């Protein structure tokens, strides 16, 4: 918790540990903010009828951090009252129902953080170099492709 009301903070963590919603919400809460909006991406148990047992994530870590910082700058440009921004992304194996990503954003009033969270997850899926492979119960595994990514299934748009 940010008890002292210091300047806006950009918090990024790429980790093999289990994620915690409380850790993210505590890290962005601040005395001058009335709102924390969060998005939690969790592992689904199915894809096109195939049973997913787990997901495995890998990242180009240094570039993922720099792309996240670009997104954060863009958020601060679009919603100047946004206070703290935190993204925790899990790497390695993530079992079904556990969180792969948690985004938390605080702002004095709620509209800004609600809109910013939505923007942040969309931008993250489009531009941050992280990949997931779904591992199926019977039929091996496959690398996923975010529909938001500009070079999915064709040349760069």
């Amino acid at each position: 918790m940010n008890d002292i009301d210091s300047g806006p903070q950009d918090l990024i963590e790429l980790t093999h540990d289990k994620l915690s919603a409380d850790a993210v919400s505590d890290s962005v809460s601040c005395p001058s903010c009335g709102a924390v909006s969060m998005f939690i991406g969790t592992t689904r148990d199915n894809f096109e009828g195939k049973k997913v047992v787990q997901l495995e994530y890998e990242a180009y870590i240094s570039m993922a951090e720099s792309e996240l910082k670009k997104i954060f700058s863009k958020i601060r440009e679009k919603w100047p009252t946004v206070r703290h921004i935190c993204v925790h992304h899990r790497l390695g194996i993530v079992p079904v129902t556990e969180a792969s990503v948690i985004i938390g954003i605080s702002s004095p009033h709620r509209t800004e953080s609600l809109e910013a969270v939505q923007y942040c997850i969309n931008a993250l899926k489009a531009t941050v170099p992280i990949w997931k492979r779904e591992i199926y119960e019977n039929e091996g595994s496959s690398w996923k492709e975010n529909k938001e990514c500009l070079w999915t299934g064709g040349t760069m748009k």
Partner: protein
Amino acid sequence: MNTEILVLYFAKSAELTGLRSENVRVPPGLTSLQLWEELVTRHPRLSMLRTQVVLAVREEYVPLGDQPVRLQEGDEVAVIPPLSGG
């Protein structure tokens, strides 16, 4: 004078090359497409990614095309298949 760069492979491209990274000597004055072709020459199986890949040169995305990549000794280049974070 060839330049030695570090190439990183991720996701599907790491599977296809069997490598996570390697040092590669490349000729000067390459475009991003020519750099890609150099990598495909080393790892022909990469060619299946042709229509759905970009490079990252010094951690900035570069689509495959005519722009020169201006590589310096020790630069980091990454093969970036379609993203699936989140």
